[in-house]
């Protein structure tokens, strides 16, 4: 199990940031990703592995209005 934006989410072996974003349907381009508080640049989404128990934050910056 991992947490994504403080909510519990299933984990699997080999889960990357990009795969998580795809699975969550997070297609908004204007986001900031942190894993255990550490910023992950967009270029690293496909490689950055997420470990069991990690705390992932995917902050969508406000748009709209």
């Amino acid at each position, binding site marked *: 199990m991992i947490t994504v934006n403080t909510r519990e989410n299933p984990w699997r072996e080999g889960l990357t940031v990009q795969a998580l974003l795809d699975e969550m*349907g997070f297609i908004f381009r204007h986001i*900031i990703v942190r894993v255990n508080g550490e910023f992950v640049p967009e270029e690293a989404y496909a490689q950055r592995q997420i470990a069991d128990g990690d705390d992932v934050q995917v902050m969508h*910056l*406000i*748009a709209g209005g």
Partner: protein
Amino acid sequence: MGKILKQIKYTPAKIHRGYSNKSLYINVGDLRVEEKEVTEFMKEKFVGGKGFDLWYLWHAVTPETRWDSPENEIVMSVGPLGGITQYSGTGKTLVCAISPLTGIPIDSNTGGYFGPLLKFSGWDALELQGKAEKDLIIFIDGNEGLISIEEGEEYPEDSHLLAEELTAHFAGSEEDKVHVSVVSSGSAAKHILMGMLNFSFYDPRRKTVRFKQAARGGLGTIMRDKHIKALVVKYKGIKPNLNDPADLAAINRIGVKYHKEVHDLDEKQNTMRKIGTANTILVMNKYDLLPTRNFQTGGDPEAVKISPEVFINQYLTQGIHDGCWYGCTMSCAKAADHFKLLTGPYAGLCVTVDGPEYECAAGLGANLGIFDPQAILEQNFYCDTYGIDLISYATTVAFIMECYEREQIGPEHTGGLDLRFGNAQASLELMHQMSRGEGFGLLAGLGVRRLKSIFVERFGADPKLLEDIGMENKGLEYSEYLHKESLAQQGGFALTNKGPQHDEAWLIFMDMVNNQIPSFEDKAYALYYYPMFRTWFGLCGLCKLPWNDIVPADNYKTDTPAKVPEHVQNYVDIFNAVTGKHIDKDELIRQSERVYNFQRVFNIRMGSGLRQHDRPPYRSLGPATAEEYLSRQERYDKQLRELQGLDPSRMTLDEKLAATRAYREKQFELLTDAVYERRGWTKNGVPTPEHLKEIGMDLPMLLEVVEKHL
């Protein structure tokens, strides 16, 4: 050209530190034209823009004033930063009046050149009062120092014709057309309550007049009721220092840095320069936020048919600077050129359509079940030229379509129009009826609140269902975001001054997706800070979009990325550089808080503005019908288990709906308590005298109103 009824020469005031320090009053009933002083008190307490509008409006009306009373005023003002050309989004005009839809002050924010040109013509604000007997044109020439009131009967009504004709007439030459701006409405505005105002700017590359809208709340209806056909301003000589700023170099420096950001980052962030605000259609669809078929669900597989790519590749002209005021590099005012109309009085004509903005594609598209870009653009064009607020139109017609499909009304009531979701031709015909002032279009133009009563009282519809699914609050129709899963945004729509328009707060991502504001206190803070921060744009003459539709590359490193701290500092620095004052980011919020509370008390004075008026329709809070529940059953069942400890497998659908409703309504009441407390209001939503004193607004006129409700 019409007969001149009155002409006055004046000496345009010199602008100093962002203010001309004069405002213009015109009474179209008796043709009085007066000059008023803008006082230090006004600047201190109200800053400008919407602040000045509300101040003048308060003194013009009484609690008995209705939207069509002669004393109701349309007031407009651009604010002290309005008209600077070095930063993006600095030409917004704020327009206020007592609204036909809500009976309380409406404020609407628009681009186009009118406000800045009005200020450079010597006027910080314009008040329009009285009622003429015949159509008038009011012309202000800021170079000549001339105000002229002329007969306007002979001009066409629809904006795309009227504004072209007036621009050509008052400019006198092609090169002078960019110095003219026209405010107009359209043929529908005199038949409906949701009439809007078009503010023009001339686009020299396309050689056509373009528009932005002061759309919400029926401002166009009031203008046509006053028999004002158009306002025209002409001012030649725009240059960077016209506001006589205290520190021009600072403004230049901040502007250069900002423009580089837009240039480097827009493509990676929101692509505002390519598509404008419609960039978010598919995002909203994916996150279950795109209002579909009267806000029943948050998206539809067919939404790909109205994706940004479809508009970019097939309709929108690319590579042209599309700013609605000089210097806006965000440049989001996109247009579809050579668009061939297929219906209505202009069928066969090729026109330029301003848009589609997000609200247009979401409202006239998904919310009506119309996933056809041609039909969306055609409705967009006709809303604009007829002077119809497309948000109120879309939300009203979505409501009508659902009533029709649920057999609450039928063809015998709609004059045979088959108003089912997805029927674009029926929607267009309804619009043309509004323009002609006939048929079911006349009823539809009254808006959701009045239609609810009419459908119940005259057509025998179910009052409870209609209360639940009619998406209005305070009489204003909701703007186009589904927000059932964001408690904060439920407040962001309903706990507002003018009604459910998202320009006070857009918290859906922060709340629903990021889970950044989980507690009531967190949400209450967000519903304090963001409405106050965003109110400030309306005091100063600014556009909200350049604040957070692009952010600095290192914004993620800040403690509060959602606030975009560097851009907040830009605004503080620009305000100080223009006015010579010394505010900081806290005083910026305080400036807004004064006007925000003033507007709340104004609502109370007009017989609204209390807790009961802030209650939303249930569909804003949760699934109002069995179909909605079943469409997201997994989500709602999970919530019953996790939030209420219930076992949905042992419950009937009716029981599940009832339990979900009771929980969500309670959550909204708790949110309301928390927000009122954070804003310094009583449990009934009344600003306390102590709070008014703390923010420097313990004015006797306000205390007298609130004391009756303590």
